[in-house]
């Protein structure tokens, strides 16, 4: 095969991919390079090329708040992944049983996804508030010693945020799962029934493996949402009590914009991106590089 022919092979696909290639190269690679370069400067309100070496990184790793943020992200992230996948899949599987009012149920589960974080954060802040939320209601019903105060307890606050995060996000996971389930051929179910395989086994050993691509998509969507989680924390706890519910994205924005210290914010975002890249790149290569 001669060289020009190689170039023109899949020409339409290549032309169609130009927007993607431009985005990847100019925005994601270019923009990231720009922020990484500025993380070595003392840029404050405006981006400036006044290099100060690794000082921003040294400060970052000696800041208690950054370390707490990372720890919180790990807890919030892993629980969020597990529970959204679990709850989302179960809800989707239940909706897929040819039930009545599917549209209504689906819309109810998905509705939180459409609401602004600021107000959902506020509502959950109210619900979880010991003085006028769930705790006070249960107590007023006679259970005086009932204690449920996640948002003002440093050890529990991240779970309080998880409550609201799952409420907001599982609807979408359910939708993705439902789309995946709808892509499974009816014949698969029929065959499983003929073979007398119980339903839960069919799900576990046949349907879920067939839905692998959907699970991968969902995993990336949840994970990227987790890494960028910000508004919810601001609206619910402002990172408190103390610094107990701080997250990395909040550190990045607070230092970039509120503190007018772009260099520090960029250093933090570079660390975040580096971590993500170390995990994602090898995996993406294995996942997408081979097959077909």
């Amino acid at each position, binding site marked *: 095969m001669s060289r020009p022919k190689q170039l023109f092979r899949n020409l339409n696909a290549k032309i169609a991919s130009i927007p993607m290639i431009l985005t990847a190269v100019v925005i994601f690679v270019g923009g990231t390079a720009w922020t990484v370069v500025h993380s070595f400067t003392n840029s404050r309100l405006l981006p400036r090329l006044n290099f100060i070496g690794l000082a921003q990184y040294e400060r970052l790793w000696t800041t208690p708040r950054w370390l707490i943020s990372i720890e919180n992200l790990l807890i919030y992230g892993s629980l969020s992944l597990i529970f959204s996948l679990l709850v989302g899949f179960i809800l989707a599987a239940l909706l897929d049983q040819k039930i009545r009012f599917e549209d209504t149920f689906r819309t109810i589960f998905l509705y939180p996804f459409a609401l602004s974080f600021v107000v959902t954060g506020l509502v959950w802040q109210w619900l979880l508030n010991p003085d006028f939320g769930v705790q006070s209601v249960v107590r007023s019903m006679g259970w005086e010693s009932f204690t449920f105060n996640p948002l003002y307890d440093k050890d529990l606050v991240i779970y309080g945020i998880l409550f609201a995060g799952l409420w907001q996000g599982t609807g979408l996971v359910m939708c993705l799962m439902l789309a995946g389930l709808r892509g499974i051929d009816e014949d698969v179910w029929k065959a499983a029934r003929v073979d007398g395989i119980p339903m839960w086994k069919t799900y576990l050993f046949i349907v879920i493996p067939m839905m692998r691509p959907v699970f991968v998509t969902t995993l990336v969507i949840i994970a990227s949402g987790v890494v960028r989680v910000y508004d919810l924390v601001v609206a619910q706890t402002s*990172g*408190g009590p103390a610094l107990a519910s701080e997250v990395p994205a909040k550190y990045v924005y607070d230092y*970039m914009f509120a*503190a007018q210290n772009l260099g520090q914010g960029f250093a933090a975002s570079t660390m975040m991106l580096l971590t993500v890249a170390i995990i994602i790149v090898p995996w993406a290569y294995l996942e997408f590089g081979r097959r077909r």
Partner: protein
Amino acid sequence: MRYKILTAAFAAAVSSPFAAPASAADLEVAHWWTSGGEAAAVAELAKAFDATGNKWVDAAIAGAGNTARPIMVSRITGGDPMAAFQFNTGRQAEELIEAGLLRDLTDVATKENWAQVIRPASLLEGCTVDGKIYCVVVNIHSWQWLWLSNKAFADAGVPVPTNWDEFVAAAPALEAAGKIPLAIGGQPWQTTGAFNVLIPAIAGKDVFLKVYKDHDAEAAAGPEIAKVFKAADDARRMSAKSNVQDWNQATNLVITGQAGGQIMGDWAQGEFQVAGQVAGKDYTCLPGLGVNELISTGGDSFYFPKLDDPEKTAAQDVLASTMLSPTTQVAFNLKKGSVPVRGDVDLAAANDCMKKGLEILASGNIIPDTNQLNTEDTNNQLNDLFVEFFKTPTLTPEEAQKRFAAIIAAAD
């Protein structure tokens, strides 16, 4: 007094060559005043500006630092700036000035004699870089207020305190009556604010200036500040049960008598007013915590990016002069709940607490706002420290003071 305003306004109109512009222009003005009262205040500015034959194009974006600022900076660096924008009075815009992106207003300032009319003089100094004036200060907000619920103290059977020490002494009685002695919301800036109010009240004005103006790490580590941390430790104990986030939820605890008091800026008055409370009868305000009656002179300023269009540039001058005209100052500040920057206007409509503030201002017992002294970076580091201190009983005052001194040492 009324007559005085009118003559001043008249004088301003006559002396100002911009009052009847040859050409009118539309100016986009960006700010973060979006709550009901704030919006009404902005409307006064716009009305006054529109009356000059120009047009105010409003670009309001709520949420000061994290939200509005990147938008403003994007517009300016994107080469398509708005005609004017608001920042807090202080150091927030210093880099934009250094980068030569903002207009020098010295000509307007000299013509209209800002140096004479603006009080205190420190406000104008905040706008001055290398002898040139870059901003218009439109109001004064102060932080140094302790708001007390008369009902809470009546319920607890103790008299309403007249200063911080009495308040601390009354705390056990309040607690016994099932009240939260001191309400502090969970947002970090509220804890820093409370601490910064304690400094001049407990340690005095000079120590405050040494620490925040000169960034003297020794003073920050010294015995005077140690006393402040002791007081903050009291405040921490008194506020341990305030399970709220927003500052106005905390204010609401005071309004409803569930909490004894709150340390908050003068904007808290709006909440009392809306709830139909009367100063002196339902609530008590103690400037400087009743110990050292002083107020800080923070507030808001407008800056004017350089524009290519000469007509708009001329209109910027008109806007700058309009914002400071006596009539606009009175109308704007009454709605905003802040104090005018001109000493030559009458504020008969002010309520008791605001009048106390005006008296202190006139007496000159004032300090600059921390926004004027510290960079936002330093203020954020302080936020991180104080929110941790106030919500972590195990963090000792001594340890916190060490970290405080380190932040001050690194500040510029």
